[in-house]
């Protein structure tokens, strides 16, 4: 009988063993949050996913072309497609016109623009519709630019990561934790900055697992918060990423500084009361970056003959890129129209020849002459074919075509040059610093900085009395337009400096009234109104735009 009692007691005791452990289960069919963020690898994979999502969003359409170049109206599509390539009518609509460049046949010279109807900045609405009136899907997919959900996905992911890092992740030391926090903050602030430039006021939050709806917040205030958010953590990152496979692909202090400079310059254009402080901070950040770069040797401007290296990506000139390479995903070629180079190139930079005998889009000769009044500029030779002849048969912008097509040997495939998608570049930071100093009336320093960029292009230094009629500020503005052409910043420079309201600077100018009513923004897709009573759209693009 005793034995039985003992047996029963053993069973009772055995069943009480460490209950907490008993209840902790690792599901084998999925990874749940309680089992994630346990190691450096988890954090790395998670951060890589955020960059990956940004990349996926960026290549949904030709983001850089649409947001940076086409809207200012100087890009004219060719009136007839070549081979399998469609007429890029949407590009014209973004620029507020319906003009075309007729085919010239074999004539190499300047072709007159075929003017169709009047200009209207509201043509943009047709370009961003998912389908045209006939129900045909717009091939350029510019509708992606009206959807901001993907950015918020990255923001939520970054917020959650920051939250987890602040809670503490085992197996991460303090430096790693700080570094990853800084990186996650860079990612989310990059998203906010991108959205502010596109939509103006946006919803801002940094809480992990945000679930309550929020209204849009004034963009100046959003940018201020972003600046404050990143300023505190920028020094936790290395100046540049030393691992060459991650250089300029993962966040670095240089990338953070460049983003901060861009943000300050944006706010300087809208928060007029505090603009001096923004210029000062931009100048200071630029100085910090350039001084540190001087010491460590990177980032630096590569020589223009090495331009292919810069566009290939991971160069010492790049500060932040969304990277793509044939080496990693030969079968995962992004949306064919995503690279801006595609619009401005033809055979032999674009294969196959029978489909690519003309450039689908050209830049007007007037615009090109405005940018390059002095033709002694290496960029013209390296980046263009026949830059001033306004002719789809001959004009090419080769800036994004220096690398071999992704499909390499297979000449019959519609290949894309194997380029990275450049977001921030060292030259951008240098010119922003120059601009800030010019605004602060420190012309001598500003001129020096401007000439650093010109020197690389072996372009005549400023001031250049030989056919360059601008003052310093305009010279810096045009220098940015030249240097950063196709990298998605020109239209935003027009917006933030309010040059958009002046027809001297753009073909698709807005009146001050339209500018004030948000004519420079992009429409927001109506789905933003779903499940959010506090949401409003950009009223300029709603109905007649006069509500």
């Amino acid at each position: 009988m005793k034995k039985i009692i003992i047996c029963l007691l053993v069973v009772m005791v055995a069943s009480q063993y460490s209950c907490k452990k008993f209840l902790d289960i690792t599901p084998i069919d999925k990874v749940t949050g309680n089992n994630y963020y346990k190691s450096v690898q988890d954090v790395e994979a998670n951060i890589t996913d955020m960059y990956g999502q940004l990349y996926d969003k960026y290549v949904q359409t030709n983001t850089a072309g649409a947001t940076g170049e086409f809207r200012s109206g100087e890009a004219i599509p060719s009136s007839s497609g070549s081979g399998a390539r469609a007429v890029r009518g949407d590009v014209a609509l973004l620029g507020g016109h319906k003009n075309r460049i007729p085919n010239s046949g074999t004539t190499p010279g300047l072709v007159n623009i075929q003017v169709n109807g009047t200009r209207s900045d509201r043509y943009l609405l047709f370009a961003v519709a998912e389908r045209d009136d006939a129900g045909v899907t717009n091939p350029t997919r510019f509708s992606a630019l009206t959807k901001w959900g993907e950015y918020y996905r990255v923001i939520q992911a970054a917020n959650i990561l920051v939250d987890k890092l602040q809670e503490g992740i085992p197996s991460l030391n303090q430096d790693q934790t700080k570094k990853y926090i800084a990186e996650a903050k860079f990612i989310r602030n990059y998203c906010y900055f991108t959205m502010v430039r596109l939509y103006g006021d946006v919803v801002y939050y940094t809480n992990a697992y945000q679930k309550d709806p929020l209204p849009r917040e004034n963009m100046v205030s959003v940018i201020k918060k972003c600046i404050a958010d990143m300023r505190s953590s920028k020094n936790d990152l290395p100046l540049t990423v030393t691992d060459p496979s991650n250089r300029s692909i993962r966040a670095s202090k240089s990338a953070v500084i460049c983003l901060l400079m861009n943000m300050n310059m944006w706010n300087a254009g809208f928060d007029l009361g505090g603009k001096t402080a923004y210029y000062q901070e931009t100048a200071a950040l630029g100085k910090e970056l350039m001084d540190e770069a001087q010491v460590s040797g990177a980032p630096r401007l590569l020589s223009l003959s090495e331009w292919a290296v810069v566009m290939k990506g991971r160069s010492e000139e790049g500060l932040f890129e969304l990277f793509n390479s044939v080496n990693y995903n030969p079968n995962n070629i992004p949306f064919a129209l995503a690279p801006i180079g595609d619009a401005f190139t033809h055979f032999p930079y674009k294969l196959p020849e029978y489909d690519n005998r003309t450039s689908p889009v050209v830049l007007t000769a007037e615009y090109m002459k405005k940018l390059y009044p002095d033709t002694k500029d290496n960029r013209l030779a390296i980046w263009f074919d026949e830059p001033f002849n306004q002719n789809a048969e001959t004009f090419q912008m080769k800036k994004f075509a220096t690398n071999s097509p992704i499909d390499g040997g297979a000449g019959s495939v519609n290949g894309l040059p194997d380029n990275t998608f450049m977001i921030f570049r060292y030259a951008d930071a240098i010119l922003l610093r120059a601009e800030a100093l010019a605004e602060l009336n420190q012309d001598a320093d500003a001129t020096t900085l401007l000439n650093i960029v010109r020197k690389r292009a072996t372009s005549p230094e400023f001031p250049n009395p030989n056919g360059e009629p601008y003052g310093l500020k305009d010279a810096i503005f045009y220098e940015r337009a030249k240097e950063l052409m196709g990298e998605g910043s020109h239209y935003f420079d027009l917006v933030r400096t309010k040059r958009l309201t002046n027809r001297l600077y753009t073909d698709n100018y807005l009146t001050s009234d339209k500018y004030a009513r948000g004519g420079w923004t992009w429409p927001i897709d109506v789905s933003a109104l779903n499940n959010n009573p506090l949401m409003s759209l950009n009223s300029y693009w709603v109905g007649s735009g006069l509500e």
Partner: protein
Amino acid sequence: MRKQIIWPLMFFCCLLMCQNLMAQVKKVTVKGTILDAVTKEPLTGATIGTQAEGGKTQADINGKYTVTVDEGSVLTFTFVSYKSESHKLAAGETTVNINMTTDAKQANEVVIRGYVKRNRDQTTGSSYIITGKEVQDNPVGNVEQLLQGKVAGLNIQNNTGAPGMRGSVNIRGLSTIATTGTGDAAFLQPTSPLYVIDGVPLDADKASEFGFDQQGPGVSPLSLIPQEDIASMEILKDATATALYGSRGAYGVILIQTVRGKSKVPVIRYSAMFYLSAVPKLRETLGGAAERSFKVGQINKYGINDDKYRLSNTQFLSDSLNAYYNNSTNWQGIFYANKFNTTHNIALDGGDARFNYKVNLKYFSQSGLIEKTGFENYSMNMNMEFKPSSKLSFFGQIRTSMARIRSGSGNQVLQTVVNANGNKSTLQPGPSFLLATSDVLSSLNIRESSGPKNLSANLNATYELLPGLSLQTNGNYTYEIETQDKFLPAAANGQFARIDNFYGYSSELYNRNNLTYTKSLGQHNLFFNVFNEIYVKKRQQSYTRITGTPNDQYEGPSGYDGNLSRGAGVLDNFYDLRTASYAFAFTYDFKKKYVLDLTYRLDGSSANGPVDPYTKNPSVGFRWNITKEDWIANHTSKWLDQADLRLSVGQNIYPIGNLVDIYGRYNPNGFYNNQARVGIDFGRVPNPNLLPKKVLQYNLGFDATLFNSHLDITFDTYYKAVTNDLVSINLSNVLAFGSFQSNDGAISNYGYELALTIRPLKQSAKVKWTMNVNGALNYDVLVKLPAIFNGQYIDISGSNGLDVSGQFLAKRVGRNSLSNYLFTNEGVYATTAQVPVDPVTGVRLRNLVGNNPLNSYQGGDARLKDLNGDYVIDVRDRSVSGNTQPLITGGFSNTIGYGQFSLNVYCSYTAVRSVLNNSLAQRLVALSNPFGTNAVPSPGDLRIWRGTGDATATYANVYNYAHEQYMNNFRGEQTLWQEDGSYFKINQATLSYNLPKDLVKRLGLNAIRTTFTASNLAVFTPYSGPNVENVNNLGKDIDGAYPNPRTYTLGLNVNF
């Protein structure tokens, strides 16, 4: 010589002995038979004893006993669940035959609380016991359906006739407002009570967790328990009764005790039932020429554009001389047929209090009314109880079952293919080898072998450490394999034979350790019960589908071909779940007059994650046995036998959500920059603060037995608050995630339950008559929704426009939880002039699409209320109406016994419920489609608009099909179809007859009982659809539902 010596010796011996005896009373040997007063069955195992010495002898298999007692002593006869009888022996009386009556007083029942047996008069919770006898005479695949209408507050709707499947079960109203799917496809998540079988909890929702679109051959484990093996079922309703069962008891608990051996002489019982399942009345259709002339006439009268030209090109209508189209096929008759079935059960049991055993073997078979559907079950249950000493006892049990289930071309509950084909035009020729569509062939030629195989072993040991202190341990392991092999011949599947293969297993390990202590200190009685439980549950299922076997005769082998494989692998319902719980109960009573119950339970679950895995369930109960109070009893003893008051309050917490809901899920998303990407899943935002659902319940109960047991009354009133219910909120796209699981749903149920047992005749009367009446009134109110919904949520999803169709659910705070969201139908426009005209545009009231005058209403169209007054009927004109859940449920049972005959009639009712009569809607839609290939239902006596000026019509002009395509007069989402779903149903009538003893003896048997049962006899309802009960749990008469059969059963019970 020898004799001469012996006799005197004996005489002297006797004298010597008698000298001893003379000082005492004379002994007598008494014989007799003990029978049930009503059924006249022998009560094997009843004990006979004297008051002085207690139980001594047991009655044998025939109810006979022999006992030697003192002359003139009082014999007492006792038997479980029968009223004790006593008989004073008269002088010289040697034969005492006793008819025992079942114990009517509920107060004397033994109930089970937290796995421990208690006397009912010392417990405070609300519960109801059903004896096994009540569930024997009607063969069913799932015994649960026989509980319908038997217990006040237990709402069972047998809403499917599919063999072996369950209906919906709710105790005390709604426990959730969570629905899966939206619009017409929505269904309410099941919140079945927890079943505990011989102390082992069982998950009855198992097969229904995927809803109507379930996959796999699962059946509820409840369907695998033979009804003959059930000794009693106890339904626990309030918090004090259920709190000890922890979180899984939040929706109520049903305890099932199986039969145990109790006769020293082994008893073998054989019972067989032979039954016919009859097809209920099906849809009436116009056949053959009637269909053709109807359709042609309709086109001639109302056709527009080139319809008449089209008619001449529609061969099946115009080419009446073509033999191919000259048919009158009864399509429904091809799929539906009456079925004959049998079940057999052999039970062997025996033993006494020290050692007893039982074996139950059962074969159950039920072919479905629909071709190729059915349920078969073979089961063997054994148990054994052994008490080596008065302190120690063991109980072991093994339950095994193998079921075979065939679901035809549908899934187990829905038969949409059959339903669609049953609707086919009668003009088409019936199925034959060359002339049949593949879906008809798939319903008729599918070959299927599937079903669960279940094995459950249970061991229970009890040891009394000290007087009053006992220790109990219980271990159970259940393993179930579910397989499904389906083969569809090529002709039935677009020329590619198809093999479907499903395999799944689930296992459950359960252990419970109990410590109880009873102590009496004078008039104070104390009782303690502490126990802990653990579960380890696992499940994995996999599925393979391959098309293209060599031919229709060979079901394999089929080599792998990527082109032919349609997916395979482990399904995502894999789980590995663990729970650990601790419970404590304390009962104190004073002179058995005042009873106080306190319970507390902690539940830890691996699904809640490691941060806070515990939920807590406390309860308090109080009972006052009024009639034990002398100052009351003295005045009332003439008419009041017993009365008590019960009051309880308690809380059950039910964990909702899982690790994914709380912490989110991380998915691999390919590569970027040649590095792996892992990101959070954006489907649902993780909610680290997710709270478990809380069910707080107050119960006030009153029991009384009056007028010398002529009347038993049990009355309960309760308030049940369900808070923290999950409500999914769709999120704004700036929040990146798709939806958020909010805890902000809350509903309250309150109601009254009354159960009466009436015995109008004297106990000594020859006719025994017992009536049970019960009813429950339950109100549910939606109390809270997430603030963002502003008090109302209508689950329209996937569309932003005003032109959405479908029967959506409306959840509005302040009214019943689940309502419909419909257009208000106010009859039919008698004339076109009655249609309101928009004074701005001059256009008559119209449907949303465009300004086309064809979209405007005219005479003969449905008069839908234009609620917002904009002269356009769109989604904004809908309003909240109706209640999908019944307000009143209950039942009524009548048992009359006379001599060897006994008649039981039992009925159930459900009242005040809205049912959407979609079958009528479809019937009318079918009337307005003359070019369609569907049969034309008979318009019957429906009040359809007859022509201009007909102001009293109910239904719009269905014949004007050309106009109907613009109007959608018979859209499902209107109040026209919302009908009163009240019904009174005669569930079952059973006539039983015990063959006379002497006849049985001559056959060499002990007892023969024959029964005749008719079930699902009649339904009385104002509802105009085919079957008011055959609707889903949201009150929708769904398309393709499996009809409930009417059955006629001949039963035979033989005791060897």
